[in-house]
């Protein structure tokens, strides 16, 4: 089986802090892979590194069979590696549908001429895809709204829909369920597995353990920038390392505080080095 994405020994350093510390990770083609870990573990940094938003200090990222280390973010996106953002990063001055269209249509250098004469014709395949992305995220009725008129949760779903509209080979979702209300979470959770039927693989970061354990084929656990465990949802549920590092946080206050203390200690040690 081939892998759509392979991170090998990927390292990102901020000052003295290794936000990603020699991370090895694989996303098999057509599979649903999750990444979990406590706040500040380096999950977002990992996506940033893969998509070219932060420089890596060591390691490679191999996407669809080729090393993408030298590519600019937009080139990676064009090659089918599409991400969402943890925070809202929408195009506020464009309607919801236009937000998706921007990502969906490719342009050539002469597109502006076609635009000026209003000659660019609609591509029915792309339009259908945009309709599908809106529908699957429950946004069909909001198609002509401005993002600012939607609830916070629906705006996050616009971000996911925009990534879907770009026809990704691999979609990287950074905490898409954070800030969603119950009905919005259900829309998202109910459709996530459907993504796989549309020629894409999925890489999901989320805090909602229930969601991650239920939708993923395989899960990696990140703590202090290091992969501390990996396995199927069943294995992760049982792993003691995961419990200590992450599930403990949810299990009880005391353990969470301990985790916090350990983290500050480690950061202190990092700083001393």
């Amino acid at each position: 089986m081939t892998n759509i994405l392979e991170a090998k020994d990927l390292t990102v350093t901020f000052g003295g802090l290794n936000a990603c510390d020699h991370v090895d990770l694989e996303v098999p083609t057509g599979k649903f892979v999750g990444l979990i870990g406590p706040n500040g573990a380096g999950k977002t940094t990992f996506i940033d590194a893969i998509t070219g938003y932060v420089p890596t200090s060591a390691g490679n990222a191999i996407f669809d069979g080729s090393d993408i280390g030298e590519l600019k973010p937009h080139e990676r996106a064009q090659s089918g590696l599409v991400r969402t953002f943890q925070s809202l990063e929408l195009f506020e001055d464009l309607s919801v549908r236009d937000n998706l269209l921007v990502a969906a249509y490719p342009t050539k250098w002469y597109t502006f001429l076609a635009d000026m004469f209003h000659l660019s014709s609609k591509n029915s395949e792309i339009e259908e895809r945009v309709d599908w992305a809106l529908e699957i995220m429950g946004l069909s009725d909001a198609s002509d709204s401005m993002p600012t008129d939607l609830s916070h949760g629906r705006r996050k779903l616009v971000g996911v829909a925009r990534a879907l509209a770009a026809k990704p080979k691999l979609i990287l979702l950074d905490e898409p369920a954070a800030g969603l209300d119950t009905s919005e979470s259900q829309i998202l959770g109910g459709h996530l597995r459907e993504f796989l039927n549309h020629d894409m693989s999925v890489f999901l970061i989320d805090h909602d353990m229930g969601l991650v354990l239920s939708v993923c084929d395989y899960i990696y656990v990140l703590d202090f920038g290091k992969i501390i465990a990996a396995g199927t949802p069943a294995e992760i549920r049982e792993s003691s390392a995961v419990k200590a590092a992450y599930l403990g946080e949810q299990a009880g206050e005391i353990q969470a505080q301990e985790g916090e203390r350990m983290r500050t200690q480690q950061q202190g040690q990092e700083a001393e080095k």
Partner: protein
Amino acid sequence: MEALLIALIAGIGAGGLYAMLGSGIVIAFRGSGVINFGHGAVAGYTAYSFDELRETGSLYLPWFDPIPEFGFLKTLKLNNIPVRIDIFDNVAFDNKPNLALTIFICLVMSAFLGLLMHFLVFRPLRNSPILGKVIGSIGVFLYLSSMIVVNFGGQNRGDEGFSGFNNTAEPVRNFLGLGGTIPRSNFYLFGAAILMAVIIWGLYRFTKFGIATRAAEENEKGAALLGYSPQFLAGANWVLASITAGIAGILFLHKTQPAQIALFVVGGLGAALFGNLTSIPGATLGGLFLGMIAGGGVELTTNDWWPEILPGEGVRNFMPLLLIIVVLYLRGDKLPIRGSISIGRQPRAPSTNNVTIGVIGAVGIALMLSNIFVSKWESILTTTLIAIVFMYSLTVLVGFLGQISLVQWSISGLAAYTMIRLMADGTKIRDTDFALNTGWGWPTILAFFGAIVVAVICGLLIGLPALRIRGVQLAVVTIAAVIAIENLLLRNPPLMGDGSVSVNPTPKPSWFGQYVGGFNPDTARNDYWKFSLFLIITAALLGIAVANLRRGQIGRRFLAIRANERAASAAGINVANMKLLGFGISSGIAAIAGCLLAYKLPGLQETQFEVFGGLALLAFVYLGGITTIWGAIVGGCLMAGGLLPEFLGVHFESIDKGLINAVGAIGLIVNAKVTNGEGIALLQTDLVKNTLTALRRPPDDTANTSNDEEAVV
């Protein structure tokens, strides 16, 4: 070699001015987070006030009497708002008022200007997006420059300076044994700049006010702990900055003309950036350095081996741009963004549907008008149409793409001059009044497109820095580029022909055998009918093209970049290419406007494409609405020389151009606050739309209407 050293040392004179202006810009930035493009204009207004007070004994307050005095209003004898205060009596050549008192009064005036800027402009705009703040400070520039014209006539003054700053003082000879002479006042200016820097530096270092200002820079709450409100600190720093500007203006008056002082802000900006926008000693050093390399550069151009194609004044005026680019390039990412800056909402940019119908309607009306109008009206119509075409270029670049470029009018100038040069074939165009113009003798259409190509290339080069820097920094680079282009490329006889330093005559333009131009040398009169038609068609087609661009994929991409560059690249947009495309399209449109202006005028004057003209055009398109073609159309009609003021002028009393620009500047600032730059056009389409929907729908359903993105035309 020695001449070069002397020139470098003499450069501390102009360097002193740059240093003082740069320090003032730093003060204002530290206090409020705003880079004030109008800082030089404050100096200029104070310099004029000083000269006027010394020569006539009258002080002019920085406003105009808004109650018109024409027609029947004259007979009402309204108690008008005071503008002129007669302070000293019996002022004569040999009885000038007391110097210290005069300076003091003028500095009070500067302080007052600072307060006005704080309370009327920058405090209200403190939560606006960066574009709004830049526009606010351009409004200050434009307003004060216009008030200089309105209150002082804007003419050059012959002030000789006073005591050590006297023009006629014995120069310093053989300084350090280098031979040559250096004006004595250069050393005084240098001393004044150093003294000012030391005082301000001490003020920030050792007084409670200074410490609070530094605290507020980090974090506005910090200042509150020291017992100062951030807004008080901002106001106090505006006053301080303005006083330093006033001092600079008064001290430098004998060296230059007050009308020019406003433009020295470009050197001041270079100095301030050299000081990282926060360091007074840094800004002072930067200013002195800039003055020296400018002086040295000019000295180099006097050598035999120096290529004639780079004129001395051009080199001098290129230096600020060079310094700014180098500083921004070296540490563009690390320049401070002051704590409180909030990225406010951008103006909406709805796509204009029904655009074709609307434009065709407008064309129809314009055509009708042009047929009815007598020849004077046709001239006004063509002025308006050319302005509209130019404003489209700003709609694309500033409105859609969000790149604040102040240089597009210079691109127009470059295209106009290039076109003339390409068309000219050495025949004398007029018998007496214009110089012979040599060139390549290209046919009209070829020269037109050749000029556009040149202008687009230049526009792309200017767009290159935009790939690294954004927001207000781009505005700084582009305003410096205006001065550089004007002096290096336009006023350049080897490059642009002998007329480029006085009047550059336009050869007869003819498209497909038809004469399209204002003044026809064959008939020796203004010949507008065909030209009007030509312009109407051009303006309409370009308007449709720009509106289509907004509706199309590229328009969406531009808006995406304006909203969020990070997200745009995640959506697969090549941000760098799109920005260059925006600069290219905008420069192409600006170039067309420039060529059309050359068609209209019998000859291009050197002053046509100065900073001021470009900023006035920006002001009016912003007032009309920067994000839609309708804004450009409204802006073109409102601006000085456009349909509305000229209509008033013909039917009531003609209105001073300076006054129109001043009113435009006020409108600009108000518009930045009230509509966030969406302008009159969008304001009234909203009004129409809301009225229509209110009429159409039952009242309880109105909540949804704001979602409707389409503009009703």
